[in-house]
C-alpha cells in the first residue's frame, strides 16, 4: 500500500442512498483474476446513461466521491474498492458506510470519510451547486475541510489504520512478526476442533 497523507481536490456528487457493492461493480466484473483494470467496471450499469453524474463534464478530474447514506453495503467484494481507486478517486465521503466495504478501504489506502448526515448533505449540495468546490482530507489530522463552506470536521479513523495509511504499511508483514504468539495460541487449540486435511 502507498502512503496516504492528504487528499485534496474536487468531488463528484452521487446523490442517492443505499448504493450497494453490486452497483459499484456488477458481478460480471468479478470473474477477473487480476487486481487491476476495474476502472471501467465502476458503476458500469449506470454509466451507460449520458446524464449519470460521472459522465458530466463539470465533474471530470474530481478525485473525491461524495455519496449518500449506506454506501457500500452488501457483498464483500473488494473489487468495489479497487474500481473506485482505479477510476481515480482517493477518498469517499458518506454519512454511513457498509462495514465490510469500509474495512476493505483501510486495506487499500482509500480514505472512507464518515461524517454527520447534516455535514454530508451540506457538502453534497455545495458540490452540486459548484463543481469547483475544493475539499481537503488530512489523514494526519483525521480532518475534512471545505474552506468555502467553513467546514472543518474530524472523522473517525482508528489510530492503527491511520498509522498504516501514513506509513504505507502492509498488515500481513506486521502480523507475521507476531509468529510466536500465533504459535503458542495454536498449541492450545482443543483436539476436538476439525481440520480439512
Amino acid at each position, binding site marked *: 500500500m502507498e502512503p496516504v497523507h492528504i487528499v485534496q481536490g474536487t468531488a463528484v456528487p452521487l446523490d442517492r442512498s443505499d448504493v*450497494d457493492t453490486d452497483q459499484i461493480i456488477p*458481478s460480471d466484473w468479478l470473474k477477473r*483474476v*487480476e487486481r487491476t483494470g476495474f476502472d471501467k467496471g465502476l458503476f458500469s450499469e449506470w454509466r451507460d446513461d449520458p446524464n449519470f453524474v460521472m459522465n458530466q463534464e463539470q465533474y471530470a478530474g474530481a478525485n473525491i466521491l461524495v455519496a449518500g447514506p449506506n454506501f457500500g453495503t452488501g457483498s464483500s467484494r473488494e473489487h468495489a474498492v479497487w474500481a473506485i481507486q482505479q477510476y481515480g478517486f482517493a477518498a469517499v465521503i458518506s454519512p454511513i458506510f457498509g462495514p465490510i466495504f469500509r474495512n*476493505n478501504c483501510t486495506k487499500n489506502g482509500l480514505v472512507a470519510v464518515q461524517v454527520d448526515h447534516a455535514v454530508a448533505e451540506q457538502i453534497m449540495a455545495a458540490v452540486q451547486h459548484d463543481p469547483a468546490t475544493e475539499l481537503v482530507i488530512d489523514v494526519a489530522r483525521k480532518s475534512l475541510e471545505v474552506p468555502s463552506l467553513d467546514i472543518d470536521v474530524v472523522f473517525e479513523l482508528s489510530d492503527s489504520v491511520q498509522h498504516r495509511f501514513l506509513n504505507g504499511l502492509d498488515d500481513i508483514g506486521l502480523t*507475521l512478526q*507476531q509468529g510466536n504468539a500465533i504459535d503458542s495460541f*495454536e498449541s492450545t487449540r482443543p483436539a476436538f476442533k476439525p481440520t480439512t486435511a
Partner: protein
Amino acid sequence: MSNKPRTLSQKVWDDHVVTRQEGQPDLLYVDLHLVHEVTSPQAFDGLRQNGRSVRRPDLTIATEDHNVPTEDIDKPIADEVSAKQVDTLRNNTAEFGITNYPMGHVNQGIVHVIGPEQGLTQPGMTIVCGDSHTSTHGAFGALAFGIGTSEVEHVLATQTLLQPTQETMSITVDGELPKGSTAKDVVLAILAACDTGGGIGAIAEFRGPVIEALSMEGRMTVCNMSIEFGAKAGLIAPDDTTFEYLAGRPNAPTGADWDAAVAHWRTLKTDEGAVFDRQVVINGADITPHVTWGTNPGQVIKLADTVPSPDDFTDETAREAAARALDYMGLTAGTAMKDVAVDTVFIGSCTNSRIEDLRAAAAVAEGRTVANGMRTLVVPGSGLVKKQAEAEGLDKIFIEAGFDWREPGCSMCLAMNPDRLTEGERSASTSNRNFEGRQGRGGRTHLVSPAVAAATAIAGTFATPEDL
C-alpha cells in the same frame, strides 16, 4: 478474563484472541477458512509476490460455486472468463496444498452449504470466508463473518485476522410462528424491523422461543441474512438441535473428543445478567409470509399487503429510495402483492437450498403444475443435497410439476453463471439480495421463502401454499 457476565459472541471472541493491545484491533485466530474462486485469486497472487505460504492449509477448504453452470457440467465452462477463474482456483489450491471440491464432485456446492454439511462448522469456532454470507455458519454458535480479498490473503498467510471489537445486539423472536410461516419469513420480518443499517457495528444474537424451535436449516437461513441489516455476524446458541445435526457428520468429533466437545459447547450461551448494547424484540405471532417489494432487503412487507407508496415514509432519504425502487421494480403503489405476476421462480442460494428447503418447495409442487410460461429453476445447494433430494424422489416431483431441476451452485442468486434474468423480468427468489441487477441486468427480484416461491410458480402471481 474477568467474571463479568458475557454474551455468547463475546465468549467465542475472547476464546480466539491471540494478542490484545490497547488502541489496536484484536488479533483473532481463525479456526476455519472457506475459499471460493471469486474473491481468492488476487490473494493467492499476493502470497506469491511476497514469497509467502499458506500457514494452515489443513484449516482451509475450497470449492467452486459462484461461476459454475447448472447444466451440462460434464462439459468445460463455456464462458472463458469464468472458466479461467475456476481454473485459477484449481491451480492455486493445488500449489498451496488446499483441498478443493471441484464442479461435479459430490461434496462440491455453495461454500456456506458445504461447511455445515461436512461437519466442519461447529459451535464456538471462528469461521471466515471472502463472502458476506459467511454469517450463515453462526447458526451453530460459531463466530462467522465475511472478509475482503486483502483479509483473505492475511488469513492464508497468518491464520489470523485483525478485528476491532464489536457491539453486541440481541434479536429476540418471542411467541410462536403462525402456521405456514418459515425461517425466511422470520428473517425478512427482522429486516423490516432493523432496516439495512440497524446492525452496523454489532454482532447479533438471535434468541427466543421462535429461534429455538427452528431446525438447523432454518437457523442457517436466519443467520445467513444478518449482513443484510449490516451486522458483522449473527449467531445462535448451540443446543441439542445443533448437536443432533452434527453427530455422525464426516468431520464431527467422535468418542471422547465428542464428549469433550459437547461439554464445551454447552457453555456457549449468553450468561444470565449479560447486557446487550442493542436490543430488538419481535412478536413471532405477527410473522406471516413476507416478500420484498424494493431494491434492498429492508424494503419488505407482508405478502398479504399492498405495494407501499413513497409518501408512506416520513424520512426523506427513505422516500426518495422508495420512489426509485418502485420505478426500477415497475410497481405501482397500492397494488396487492398477490396480484403481481411473476416470470421466473428461483429456488436456491445459500439462504434456501438445503434439503429442508427443497422438501418444503416439493410439498407445494407435488401433484400440481407450474403456471403457463413460468420459468423455474430449482438449484440444490450442494452435490450432497442433490443426491439426498433424488434419493427422496424430490427431483421427480419437481420435474413432473414442470420445474427445472439443476446442478448445484450459486446460480441465479447473483448471475455470474448463465442463469440470469433479462431486462424487466420479474422473479420470486429464495435468495438474499434484491439489489438492482443482482440477478441480471434490469432484472426485478422479490425475495421470498421456498414455500412461497413454489406456490408462486404454480399460481403465476405471488401466492402462499394456502392460496392455491
